[in-house]
């Protein structure tokens, strides 16, 4: 019985509901469960950027929310703001902007960030106020628990929790390259 509960397996797999950057047919899918207020995630942000650049078409990257709201009081609203930006087609711009301004996460900061991205900032403010994306963020969080997320950031490489050293970019790339070589041609399944 316990064997089934071992590792940490991404559940559910990446689908249309996810925010995905990169080639849809890439052999490697990297998923991050992240928290916008978490300093470790802030540290991981440029590393992931660099990795995306290095792997190019071999990699697609998806981000899911895992706000540790007890320790990070702004994390949930930051996540909701990014989801609200996604509604306007600018998830990644907002995601990036938030990580690049991690010290400014009050609601008015998030709205100002949205404005600087030429988003409908009023709509973002309203979404935060109304909790429009609270359930969606919670859904991500729950899927993270199910998948074996054990802190932030947690990464999954082709569905498998990566417990290696993500902060060491070269070994992270090595793990992704390895996964790319092992991956069966995707497109049919998944």
């Amino acid at each position: 019985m316990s064997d089934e509960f071992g590792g940490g397996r991404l559940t559910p797999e990446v689908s249309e509901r996810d925010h995905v950057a990169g080639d849809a047919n890439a052999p490697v899918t990297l998923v991050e469960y992240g928290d916008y207020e978490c300093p470790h995630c802030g540290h991981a942000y440029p590393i992931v950027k660099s990795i995306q650049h290095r792997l190019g078409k071999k990699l697609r990257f998806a981000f899911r929310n895992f706000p540790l709201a007890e320790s990070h009081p702004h994390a949930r609203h930051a996540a909701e703001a990014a989801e609200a930006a996604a509604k306007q087609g600018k998830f990644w711009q907002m995601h990036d902007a938030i990580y690049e301004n991690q010290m400014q996460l009050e609601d008015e900061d998030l709205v100002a960030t949205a404005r600087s991205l030429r988003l409908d900032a009023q709509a973002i403010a309203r979404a935060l106020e109304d909790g429009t994306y609270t359930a969606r963020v919670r859904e991500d969080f729950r899927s993270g628990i199910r998948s074996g997320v054990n802190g932030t950031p947690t990464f999954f490489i082709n569905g498998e929790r990566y417990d290696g050293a993500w902060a060491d970019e070269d070994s992270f790339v090595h793990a992704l390259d390895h996964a790319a070589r092992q991956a069966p041609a995707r497109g049919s399944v998944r």
Partner: protein
Amino acid sequence: MAEQNDTTKSASNGNAAVLPAGTAAPNFTLKAAPDREITLADLRGKPVVLAFYPADWSPVCGDQMALYNEILPEFREQDAEIIGISVDGAWCHKAFADARKLRFPLLADFEPKGAVSRAYGAYADSGVSQRALFVIDAAGVIRWSYLSPMGVNPGADGILAALEGLTPEQRGAKQGASASAALGSKASTSPAASSDAGAAR
């Protein structure tokens, strides 16, 4: 494929030493605060999750205890109590719990040091508790256990799956109404609750 292997490896690795499913959970009384104790047998009537861990003050966001704190609603949904145990003293636990705003008890396996961890097969030679997880049913029988490598926070997926896998009886459904507090059953003197050990591996 490789992913499969990894999963199996850590799991079987893990359970080599810790008490397996089907074993009666050894009873204990430990300090939950400088002036308060918790006795496992008092929690009969609902599932209990024991999470042994090496030390307070782990330097990452969302360390194991902080993670469980975030997902307390999920544990409560299963009507389960969760308890953290390490060899840190009660005052240390208090400072840690206050700093992380933890809303579940941390027990001090402090004197004699590590005695409870040892009883569960969850003590490391280095002098700390291992990262070992136990799901104990309403009758005090271990229904699931898992030992994670020392450096790997096991997360909560295994715990939740194990809780969901409990039968209504193992959840204490019959006593559901009286399971509200730590006042459990009178018949809790002997920890050797039942030996029906359905899940013996």
